[in-house]
């Protein structure tokens, strides 16, 4: 039976020639795992063991399209990855463990991971012992199809290196797993740069921004200088943005002029003003407006719900996108601009005929990092031609859209995790 299973797996496994960087071990995206009952460690509480494994799986999920779900109830044959501790000859395994020291764990390509309980495994940040988290991330990497990688910094190095504080899965290991399972992609609810004022240790007030991507009730902070999302994201929207709808928003707009500094979140027919100082929505803002408010009240002539929106500092207008149309709203006059709504492809024409999102956008995002406006739809984005572009190439129509690119090629590793893993 085992040989037959191996034959099935070997024939069924899609092996991508990946310069020897392993093979794709699973063809499905949601994998079930379990710490098997006969394989509990005698060194850590069961909750600690499961917590560490949940975190280990989540770390791989944050950098790959795979999602992992702990399943304690289904029949064992439905569990894709089974983890257990043992000593010496253990868990029916052909490879006996060697006792304390040297070999600390091994993994089988059928999804079994064994930890040598003669080793002194410790929970994260315990300082001493062998970090169970680091070993688990390594062995899960094997089950997913990664071989040993002899590269400083790789989690797949065969030897255990005492845990540098808070190890993470680095860029090349991310690319290795994405080479097997593809990059992460998917539509976003909105994307924005959130501006906030901070005081330096010298008391000076400085302006900082952070980039966020939101998808339904989750969000990631994107660290542009590191080309990745913040370690540990995504997190639930209501954990980080107090008072906006827990299932996410349609749009974010930051109106920022000499006299106005107002952040708005839009959802359905309503909108909220956000108090960035206190990091929560206003129930009543300094002008006495109570929230949530109807979009049509705060922005006369703009019907909710909208698909997305962005504030254009060049002309002090907010552009609201709805279906195939765009509404330009003059902030100073507090009124819809004359002649709007217009079709999106009229206001933002395609620079290359035919390469245009059409309508029904997911996000319109002005990026301080790129100093450009991006229109996102599905897994693609189009950059709006800037004044600088037109100086270089005058033939480009004003506000035209450059040819599309894939979001995953510009903003990396924005990956979902399983809903059960959102809160560890």
């Amino acid at each position: 039976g085992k040989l037959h299973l191996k034959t099935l797996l070997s024939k069924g496994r899609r092996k991508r020639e990946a310069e020897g960087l392993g093979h794709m071990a699973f063809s499905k995206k949601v994998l079930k795992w379990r710490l098997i009952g006969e394989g509990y460690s005698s060194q850590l509480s069961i909750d600690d063991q499961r917590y560490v494994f949940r975190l280990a799986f989540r770390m791989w999920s944050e950098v790959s399209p795979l999602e992992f779900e702990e399943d304690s109830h289904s029949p064992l044959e439905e569990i894709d990855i089974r983890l257990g501790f043992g000593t010496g000859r253990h868990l029916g395994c052909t490879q006996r463990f060697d006792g304390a020291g040297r070999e600390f764990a091994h993994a089988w390509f059928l999804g079994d991971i064994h930890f040598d309980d003669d080793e002194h495994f410790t929970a994260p940040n315990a300082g001493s012992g062998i970090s169970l988290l680091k070993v688990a991330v390594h062995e899960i990497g094997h089950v997913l199809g990664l071989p040993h990688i002899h590269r400083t910094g790789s989690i797949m190095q065969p030897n255990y290196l005492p845990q540098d504080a808070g190890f993470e899965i680095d860029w090349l290991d991310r690319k290795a797993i994405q080479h097997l399972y593809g990059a992460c992609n998917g539509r976003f609810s909105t994307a924005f740069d959130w501006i906030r004022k901070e005081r330096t240790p010298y008391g000076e007030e400085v302006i900082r921004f952070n980039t966020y991507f939101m998808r339904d009730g989750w969000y990631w902070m994107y660290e542009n200088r590191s080309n990745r999302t913040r370690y540990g994201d995504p997190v639930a929207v209501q954990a980080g943005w107090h008072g906006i709808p827990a299932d996410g928003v349609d749009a974010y707009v930051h109106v920022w002029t000499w006299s106005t500094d107002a952040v708005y979140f839009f959802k359905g027919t309503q909108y909220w003003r956000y108090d960035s100082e206190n990091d929560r929505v206003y129930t009543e803002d300094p002008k006495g407006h109570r929230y949530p408010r109807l979009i049509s009240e705060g922005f006369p002539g703009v019907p909710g719900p909208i698909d997305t929106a962005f504030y254009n500092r060049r002309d002090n207008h907010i552009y609201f996108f709805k279906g195939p149309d765009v509404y330009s709203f003059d902030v100073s006059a507090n009124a819809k601009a004359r002649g709007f709504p217009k079709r999106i492809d009229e206001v933002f024409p395609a620079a290359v005929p035919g390469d245009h999102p059409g309508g029904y956008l997911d996000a319109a995002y002005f990026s301080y990092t790129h100093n450009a406006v991006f229109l996102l739809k599905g897994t693609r984005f189009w950059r709006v031609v800037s004044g600088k572009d037109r100086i270089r190439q005058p033939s480009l129509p004003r506000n035209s859209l450059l040819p599309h690119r894939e979001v995953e090629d510009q903003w990396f590793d924005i990956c979902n995790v399983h809903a059960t893993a959102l809160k560890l």
Partner: protein
Amino acid sequence: EKIFHNRDHSDVEIQQQADPIIDEGTAQQFLSKYGFIKPVNWEEIQFENEEAVLSDDSPAPKDIVSVIQEGGSLSRMGIKDQSDDPAESLQFTSALEEFQRVSGLPVTGAFDDATKAAMNEPRCGVPDKEEPADSSDAQNATETELRNATAGNITASTAANETVNGTEDWRASTEVH
């Protein structure tokens, strides 16, 4: 520290310690086990039937696998102690150099202290060099050999013809021995 309840700690089982790598013999086992002498068919190992799992002093898994893969001579391929076989020691030296290279050690080809220390570091049990298991000819050969080996009628020459690509010369030299 391990949980104990008895005043004299007698209830804490004497923890077995891993055998250290101390000489070229144990170093050869290490290099063999983790695929530096010949890539290990790690998947195969998981599938060998329990009977083949020999007693505690069972040879390093590679040899179990080679016995299975080879089929012809089912005698145990014990770990040869240091033979003066020039091919063997050449093999050992090049495997050692490969280990030193991937470990970022000075590539001396000698079993020196730095190498000894590195071999005794805590590590994962998955081999560093695995044999691709599902290239079709290897797959068929393995299946055929396994089936024949079970039937006991495989002949050395058959094994030689169907060996996994790239091990032909290795197997031939082994068969000579």
